[in-house]
């Protein structure tokens, strides 16, 4: 593959990752969110494979595969099961209204480009232009956690942040060492299980997954 085409492909996929991030920011329905999360994982996985091919780093194929199984299949499946069991597939409540959230998200993307411009000038990697996108994905994930009230959406926001970090690692340094990535993957998986268990408990305790309910936990 030509290096130019690879760079184009990389940018194209980055655009899709960002697009799904924005999609998650505006999506009100639970299932829709999970699907968007799965799509984001898929773009990430393909992107990792492409970068691995261009850079000749074969361990990236393993991370790509790992991303595919974990973030495209396993985690969305767990979330699906959670939503079905807890019957929380209704519309998602938001703290800030959707257009406002979109505007903040756009501001964050511009901010990330502004932040990353010196790094982009110094870097010689094929993937350098996507670094800002990765940072924006992280920040949008955090924004999503802030603007949503529902515990499951908070977790999806958290996982989206992790996606952004993974993306940043691939674009900044052609991925982390395999050991680290394996560790992170296991962490994410275990985190998902723990969240699942906690949700059941929170649901039985508060009869809701609205995090506002947890204000009651505060000591006066």
């Amino acid at each position: 593959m030509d290096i130019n085409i690879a760079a184009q492909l990389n940018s194209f996929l980055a655009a899709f990752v960002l697009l799904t991030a924005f999609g998650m920011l505006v999506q009100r329905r639970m299932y829709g969110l999970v699907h968007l999360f799965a799509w984001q994982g898929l773009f990430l996985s393909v992107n990792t494979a492409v970068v691995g091919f261009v850079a000749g780093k074969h361990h990236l194929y393993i991370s790509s595969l790992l991303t595919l199984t974990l973030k495209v299949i396993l985690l969305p499946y767990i979330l699906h099961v959670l939503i079905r069991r807890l019957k929380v597939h209704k519309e998602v409540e938001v703290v800030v209204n959707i257009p406002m959230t979109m505007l903040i998200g756009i501001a964050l993307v511009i901010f990330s480009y502004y932040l990353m411009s010196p790094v982009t000038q110094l870097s010689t990697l094929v993937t350098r232009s996507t670094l800002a996108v990765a940072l924006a994905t992280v920040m949008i994930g955090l924004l999503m956690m802030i603007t949503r009230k529902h515990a499951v959406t908070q977790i999806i926001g958290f996982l989206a942040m992790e996606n952004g970090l993974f993306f940043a690692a691939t674009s900044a340094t052609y991925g982390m060492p395999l050991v680290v990535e394996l560790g992170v993957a296991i962490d994410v998986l275990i985190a998902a299980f723990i969240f699942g268990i906690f949700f059941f408990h929170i649901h039985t305790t508060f009869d809701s997954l609205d995090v506002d309910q947890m204000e009651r936990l505060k000591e006066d």
Partner: protein
Amino acid sequence: MTFTPIEIISSAVLLLFLTILIAPLLRGRQRLLINASFTMASAASLLGLIGGVWVVAGGLTSRIILPVGLPDLPFHLRVDPLAGFFITVISLLSFFVSLYSIGYVKGYIGRRPVTSLAVFYCLFLSGMLMVVLADDALFFLISWEVMAAASYFLVMFEDERIENRRAALLYLVVAHVGAIAILLSFGIMAGLTTGFESFSGYTFDAMRQAEVPLKWSTAAFLLALFGFAAKAGVVPLHVWLPEAHPVAPSNVSALMSGVMLKTAIYGIVRVSFDLLGTFPWWCGAIVLILGLISAVMGVLYALMQHDLKRLLAYHSVENIGIILIGIGLSMVFVSFNMPLLAALGLIAGLYHTMNHAVFKGLLFMGAGAVLHATNERNMEEMGGLIHRMPWTAALFLIGCVSISALPPFNGFVSEWLTFQAFLLSPALPSPLLKLLIPMGAALLALTGALAAACFVKAFGVTFLGQWRGHNMPRVHEADWFMRFGMILGALSCLLLGILPALFIDWMDIIPQQLIGTKTGASSGAYGWLWLTPVARERASYSGMIVFGGILLVVVAAYIILHVKPGTIRRVPVWDCGFGKLNPRMQYNATSFSMPIRRIFGFLFNIRERVQLTPRAIHKAFPKRLYYYLRVRDRFWSWLYKPIVEFSLFLSRYAGRLQQGRIQAYLIYSFITIIVLLVFSR
């Protein structure tokens, strides 16, 4: 096979650790546990005593490096005569107190399990020994914390009472504020020795050799002084002391008051004379002023107390003040390059350290025996105990005479030496000191007089007269273990008082190493019999001859009164024709101290109320009279209350950040990230 002194002292620490391990195994058999663990503790103390005396007598310095601790930061252990002296003091008193504890702790059997008392007692002893053994900042601070934590649990021993829990918490807070200051002080010294580049400056050896700029050494000294003063209970950091000492078991109070406070004195001497070596003259003046304030305020507060152990605790503040006066004078003289007087001041301070350990230990043991027998700490309820507890009364009296600085006992000698340091000092080139030195001597004299008044009250109200409480409990004399501990204490009070020249000769190596001159206190034609600081024509004292004189007078009086029968007649007390004398009409602790309360009333926060019952026909014939008196420490409202209120105010303000909403917390981190990114770009 030969031993070095440091090995003997370390084996004492190891023996204590072994006891800590064994004690929980004997949990089921409390009597055996008490016998075994306190016997082992006294054996360990004996080992420490041998090692300590040997080190000072030989002027030895030896060290061990233990390959434990953090990587590349091993523990350094070292004894020199200064450390040996403090090990001697600690071991001497802990030997007495451990023997005493065998009897005392048995009083708890059937009331509560004493396993934790035995374990923390041994941990506390080992902590104190390790503090003195430590030769690097890390090991020092670890030992310091072990000591503080162990004594915290000992204060908490009877934890069902709220006053004990409060006292323990206050103690822990003050101890840790002090520990932070000590940590910072060591940090400055260690950092400057290596230019803040490596950790190798943490040993005391490195600090000794370093040339620290004067302003930094002053900062390090002031921090260390603050930290150690908090531990020693120097006014105004003394508030924890009268709370914590009375509520701890009495054997622990004896150790805390007798020797734990002395580790802080050790710290001050170690940091100022040994590690820093140079300090501006006003540092010594600060120590001197703090000592004077503590001495006077301590004794005045002690006079106001009617809880026997609380009274003794305030006397510890006073005596720490007297010790600091000696050390402060010594520091002033060092700064003005007068080594002979500096040595005299240091010896006076250190000798008083030893004496205070012995007599305060004895007094607390006596108070413990009274508490053990009557279950009462309030002196207003006591009286007449001399008939039921003759041994305790006689031994407590010896402690009272010693602490009141009366010859021939030991308190007199060290206070006399401090006076000599005051009186022999020539005109110093500073107007403040010119004022301070005569005033200090006057204040010290005042302190001695007030202390004597206070112990007349303590002894008189507790042991003389008749029982003041409503019904007298079944009082029993202390058992032989407790008596033995107290007898040893009283004997050492006497020996330290009548043979001071011998002991000062023994410890004269310390000023020689730290200042460079011996006092030569016993030099002169008369040898060990006469104590002659500086010059024989100026002042000299012979404890032995004074003791002989007093003995002669007593024997003569006894012979005159008892040889011929009929010289002593027992008749009823003349009651002015009133006819209904009862024990409530005796002088009590409050009435005894009333004149002094009137004179020095402005120093206390006093609330006094006299209330007559309204049904009285005339003011002169009240049916019933209520008298209410509350004396409080002014420092609490001056210094501590504002701090407490300010920190509460700040916490309430900061508490608004904590809303309990996850989104709010996420926004905090989000904003933090954005701000950091903007600034780091």
